[in-house]
């Protein structure tokens, strides 16, 4: 557990950070460090430099800016799990945040770090996908926004360029009668999601399901939206049969991962169970 040598910089503004990144090939952004540092210690990542954005105060903010909420990249899991701006309107994200690691990791680890790291079993990406968030990246050429649906490319791969800093996550406003939940089946040792499902449902005034978003983590090489399940569930009355049908469709079109903890068959089964449980809680919260 001895890391290779690397340069270290600690900018105080995003512009400085971007400049630092541009100046050092193979540099990596360091936020909470709870994913990156272990990788470096295990020799699985060997960045030439770390650009520590931890002192950029503006990235720590949660801004309630109607019609939505903007999260700075450095907002910790702990804050997501407890801040009323999140727990009320974006409950699935709070559920996901409280599922991350342990109290120490939640106190230091950040939402921006989790998304940029893109571990295929991380919890928060599922919620970010389900809420149709957008991600603001800042690079040498300026700002751009990336839809969550376009952000996750594969295992540890995102749409972020090497010279971009993930600055903010914008959560769109949620309509009335919306409820959400995140349910995972945790790995016993690592507590990463063997499967995790974030469900966001909106009922119309007549009680029918106006909108359903179901996003999955842990089951595949990247988080994804379970489109077939969403379509099947939308327009139904949200009854048990509709929930069961959607749960059965959650794995549609994917080839589930297989590892020591779960075979593809078991993981597919767990995906159905987590989808059903997440939908049921979300429906309860949508009342």
């Amino acid at each position, binding site marked *: *557990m*001895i890391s290779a040598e690397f340069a270290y910089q600690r900018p105080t503004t995003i512009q400085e950070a971007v400049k630092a990144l541009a100046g050092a090939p193979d540099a990596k952004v360091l936020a909470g460090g709870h994913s990156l540092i272990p990788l470096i210690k295990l020799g699985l990542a060997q960045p030439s430099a770390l650009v520590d954005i931890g002192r950029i105060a503006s990235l720590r903010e949660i801004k309630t800016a109607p019609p939505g909420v903007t999260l700075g990249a450095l907002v910790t899991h702990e804050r997501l799990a407890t801040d009323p701006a999140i727990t009320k309107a974006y409950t699935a994200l709070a559920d996901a945040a409280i599922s991350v690691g342990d109290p120490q990791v939640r106190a230091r680890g950040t939402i921006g770090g989790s998304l940029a790291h893109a571990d295929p079993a991380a919890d928060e990406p599922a919620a970010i996908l389900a809420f149709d968030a957008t991600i603001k990246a800042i690079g040498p050429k300026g700002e751009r926004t990336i839809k969550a649906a376009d952000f996750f490319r594969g295992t540890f791969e995102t749409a972020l360029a090497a010279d971009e800093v993930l600055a903010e996550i914008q959560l769109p406003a949620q309509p009335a009668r919306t409820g959400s939940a995140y349910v995972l*089946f945790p790995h*016993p*040792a*690592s507590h990463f999601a063997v499967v995790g499902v974030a469900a966001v449902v909106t009922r119309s005034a007549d009680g029918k399901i106006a909108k359903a978003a179901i996003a999955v983590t842990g089951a595949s090489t990247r988080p994804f939206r379970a489109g077939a399940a969403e379509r099947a569930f939308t327009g139904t009355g949200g009854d048990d049969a509709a929930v069961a049908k959607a749960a059965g469709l959650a794995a549609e079109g994917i080839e589930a991962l297989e590892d*020591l*903890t779960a075979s593809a068959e078991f993981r597919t*089964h*767990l995906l159905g169970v987590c989808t059903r449980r997440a939908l049921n809680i979300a429906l309860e919260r949508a009342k």
Partner: protein
Amino acid sequence: MTATATPYIGSRVQRKEDPKLIKGEGIYTDDVTPPGTLHLALVRSPHAHARINKIDASAAKRQPGVVTVLTGADTAATGPLPCFITLPNLKSAKHFPIASDRARYSGDAVAVVVADSRRAAKAAAAMIEVEYEPLPVVIDARAAAAPGAPILHEELGTNIAYVYPVKGGDIDKAFREADVVIKHRIKNQRLIPNAIEPRSVVVRPDEGGGLTVWTSTQIPHFVQLITSLNLGLSQNKVRVIAPEVGGGFGSKLNVYAEELLAAFLAKTLGRPMKWTEERREGYLATIHGRDIVEDVELAAKKDGTITGLRIRGYANLGAYLQAFAPVIETVLHIFIIPGAYRIPAFDCEITGVYTNTTPTDAYRGAGRPEATYLIETTMNMLARELGIDQAEVRRRNFVPKTAFPYTTITTLAYDSGDYDQTLDKALAMADYAGFEKRRAEAKSRGMLRGIGLSSYVEICGLAPSKANHALGVGWGGYESARIRVHPTGAVQVFTGTSPHGQGHETSWSQIVADSFGISPDDIEVRHGDTFESPGMGVGTFGSRSLAVGGVAVHKAAEKLREKIKLIGAHMLEASPEDVVFEGGKVHVKGVPDKAKTFGEIVFQSYMAFNMPDGMEPGMEATYYYDPTNFTFPFGTHIAEVEIDPEVGTTKIVHYVACDDCGVQINPMIVEGQLQGGIVQGIGQALYEGAVYDDNGQLLSGSMMEYHVPTAADVPNVELSHTVTPSPVNPLGVKGIGEAGTIASTPAVVNAALDALGTLGIKTIDMPLTPERVWRAIKDATPKEVRK
């Protein structure tokens, strides 16, 4: 000196060792870095079985900071690593710190780098090019024993290290006359010990050609012995210190390759050497535990009375024999299989086999958890088969309390016991009678609830020496103690035991406090330094420390107690029969005012002018205690679990235990040992298991895959006890270090099978992972629902 009349034996004295450990002031081996220290890094084979054709270290040697790179051929002068066991016809393979011709498991060392920093050593190790010629791999013991299997050690001509039979009674008659025969295959999966402190060793060459060795070990005296024998150093020139040791569980009960290598390199290069294991490295290079598969046949009458037990098993020893490996699944396993029961006929044979895996050896319980798991899960199968309650089937077969001392069919002489009493108490604590109501309530929530019993008997002590010799253990089973009372009355206890979490500093001081009538606070207990302790300390393992080492301390203290009394009587001008020694004072019977204090008497022993004629001056005593028998703690544990059938998770909702370890010196330490042990046993039942692929690669290679239970995973455990003193030793103590681990694994699995039994599921392999449970439920015939 605080004189006191309170008996300290039996009281919950706060652990003396904790403040410094909690404050981070404990000195562990890795905290020791003598000036000029060089660091070692081992190059380990990535192949489970391969010929080593060529090692090119030229690039590595050119790296800055690198002192040298050595291979097996360069280090053969270390001599082989020891195995202390000689079973009949044991085929013992040569085992050197660095393999020279072939690597036999993934992790086998093939070269060592010596450099001036750890970083330089690690970097250079990564640059060494080894040309391997991969050989066929065998990881399963049964497969490795079969004809045609790839042979690991060609000089032996076979992978079978031993075949160990134990027989008693008329087994054929037992099966002929049985009404029912239970047959099943029992697997105790391979476990990875996971002491909190990884292994570490530092060796410093001293003036005059000696060595000082700091090492994270349970057996400093054996490290001293082997280092001096193998390196040709006079034993008095080798000082081995086990400073604070952060857990062992048997994994530090070896003289390891790195210890011998560091000593050899310090001696030959004349510089201090240091090596500290990384956790992932430890998963490969520190011993594993368990790994035995047994086919069990139990013969019984319709009423549940056992008539015979037949077992054939294969133990996986890994690639080489470690220090105690051959006794684990033989002596420590087979003899105690009958457990708490009268078994009139017994026939067991275990075959120990080399495979291309990390060597196995003692891991908390060492053979005894496997035995208890075997008999206790089989008892529950018998109960289910005959429709007899699981508590009742135990009761019908228990050795009755009137039968002690009781000689088992395997020739063990159980010292004392009252098995019904611990069972009754545990049943009451568990509200066993009310269980079916709870099962029904759980069912209404869609959960499967089960309750499981485990009534165990453990062998502790691992002495007497005569028994050790007869059983093939190549060393005596005694333990040593020396007590030095300084002229000022300050008391130092030097023990041959080597605690690494057990609290001997506290317990031993309680024992001495009661002999002298002083406070434990006034007694210092020192351990783990071969230059201080008596000539030979055997060490801490096998729940032996109290029943052997603690008694040695008591015996040494009683020798001094007698001397104090004689000097006191002399100073009081009274006859020794007319004085008493209590509350830290010697006084004439009935005249407490006319007294000499402990301090006055000790001082006189050094002034030495007013003592009985011919008495040796001074106040120091050494005692080597060799017990007359093992001790046999026992008890019943009961687990209650709920299984979520949809996802296969097993949650322990209630856990109770009633244990009897004889007299308790410090009930708080007893409870701590039980709590930790129970959690470790739960780990085996539900979570832990080393997994190899067919190529011999360890897939569960880190704590991210191998789940050691945490506080969040385990229930509150309710403990109670009974006290049946052991007649074997004057303290009446038995030992408690492993009981929790031994008892809890079958209790949890029996509870899970009680829950799953409602679906017709009769057996399941450990660990009970969610997928395994889910699959068992899925595959079960749903029609076959039982009561």
